[in-house]
């Protein structure tokens, strides 16, 4: 079943067109990886899915993006609630200059999701548990988030996204700044989170796409070249362009 449906999406930065006629369905509780060379539009496309590009004054979107059947570019869309439903994790972890607890509690508080203090504590713990960080931080919840390692900070950001009960998580190269062991934890987490969430992950790491995703979409020069089950994509892609990219003939 489609969670997100995109049809004939075009995206412009001023006069420059960054995305051309993108149409794709993203299924509920799948991990879909976006791959492609730098500047191919995969991150731009990711950011159209929760209207993060709205913050760029010269950006313009044409076409249809629906989540659960509702057009997210309708004028009456509540963008804050959209971004709660469609959370995002960035390449560089960006914890707030606050304690570990407060980083996770922040979104719950401003959205008024919790009933009382005990409920808040429980939600923070659950988010940290679901992001596989709780065991590592439970004895220092009130210390600064900046004291965590890069990998832990990234998982804290995932916990922060999970705390507000999203349905979709967009990840923009979430492990590109991490060492192999921290990367492995993030990848294991992605596979685990798939049970509850729809996950869209942009990655430059082809092996990562191969390891974690159910389907892979290949972008090139602002166009969606191919989307297929990951297993097919990496053993026998339909398009020669895809084959050339994943086998390193250009990049």
């Amino acid at each position, binding site marked *: 079943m489609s969670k997100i449906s995109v049809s004939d999406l075009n995206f412009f930065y001023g006069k420059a067109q960054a995305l051309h006629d993108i149409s794709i369905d993203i299924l509920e509780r799948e991990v879909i990886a976006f791959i492609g060379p730098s500047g191919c539009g995969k991150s731009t496309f990711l950011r159209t899915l929760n209207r993060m590009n709205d913050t760029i004054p010269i950006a313009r979107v044409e076409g249809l993006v629906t989540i659960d059947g509702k057009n997210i570019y309708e004028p009456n869309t509540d963008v804050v609630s959209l971004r709660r439903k469609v959370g995002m994790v960035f390449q560089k972890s960006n914890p707030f200059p606050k304690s570990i607890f407060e980083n996770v509690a922040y979104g719950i508080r401003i959205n008024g999701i919790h009933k009382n203090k005990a409920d808040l504590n429980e939600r923070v713990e659950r988010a940290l548990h679901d992001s596989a960080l709780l065991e590592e931080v439970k004895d220092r919840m009130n210390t600064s988030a900046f004291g965590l390692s890069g990998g832990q900070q990234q998982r804290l950001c995932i916990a922060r996204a999970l705390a507000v009960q999203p349905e979709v998580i967009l990840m923009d190269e979430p492990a590109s700044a991490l060492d192999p062991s921290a990367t492995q934890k993030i990848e294991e987490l992605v596979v685990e989170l798939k049970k509850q969430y729809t996950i869209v992950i942009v990655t430059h790491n*082809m092996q990562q796409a191969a390891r974690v995703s159910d389907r892979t979409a290949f972008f090139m020069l602002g166009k969606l070249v191919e989307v297929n089950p990951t297993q097919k994509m*990496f053993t*026998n892609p339909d398009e020669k362009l895809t084959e050339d990219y994943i*086998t*390193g*003939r250009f990049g």
Partner: protein
Amino acid sequence: MDHRIIDQQLDLLRDKLLLLGGTTEAALQRAMRSLTERDSKLAKQVLDDDKIIDQMELDIDRFSVEILALQQPAAHDLRFVISVAKITPILERIADHAGSIAKAALILNDEPQLKKYVDLSMMAENAAEMLRTALDAFTAEDATASRRIIEQDKVIDKCYKRVFDELITIMIENPSTTASAAHLLFVAKHIERIGDYVKDICELNVYLREAAFIKHSKGK
């Protein structure tokens, strides 16, 4: 990007496989010659050379693993390495059958010749030809030719049945020939198995070209 590091390695891997293929093909032909020309020296040579083939197999195994681990091939590159890694032990087994034919020759050459080995020679020539064309089809990544070669195995199977019946008749008619006839039966069986192995190679050629697994499927 025209020159990828992996390209050199894949070329080298292909060369290693073709060298193994050529050596295996030669082993089969020499084993058959050692039988039909009653040349026991040649039979011993085939058995000695089997060690070289075993080493070639190990070398390709190691190199395939190295490419998989270090180059992490995908798509056609991946299918290529997988095909080579699976064809290699098949070739080694074909060479083992050639060795077994040479061993039979060593025994049979000390006995009076039971009959002219016309059918066996023909079977072996068919098998060697199948092997040669299968390796050509691998190099050319020719799935059509590979499917054609698969069909040729039926000719070997038919020939095997004929040889089998004939040898059984000889045994019944003249029980003193049983030991020699049994050895010849084994030789025929070795050649028949080689035909099956070449079929397996051709199925991998199709996989390499089309990413389709045709093994155990009726339509091919």
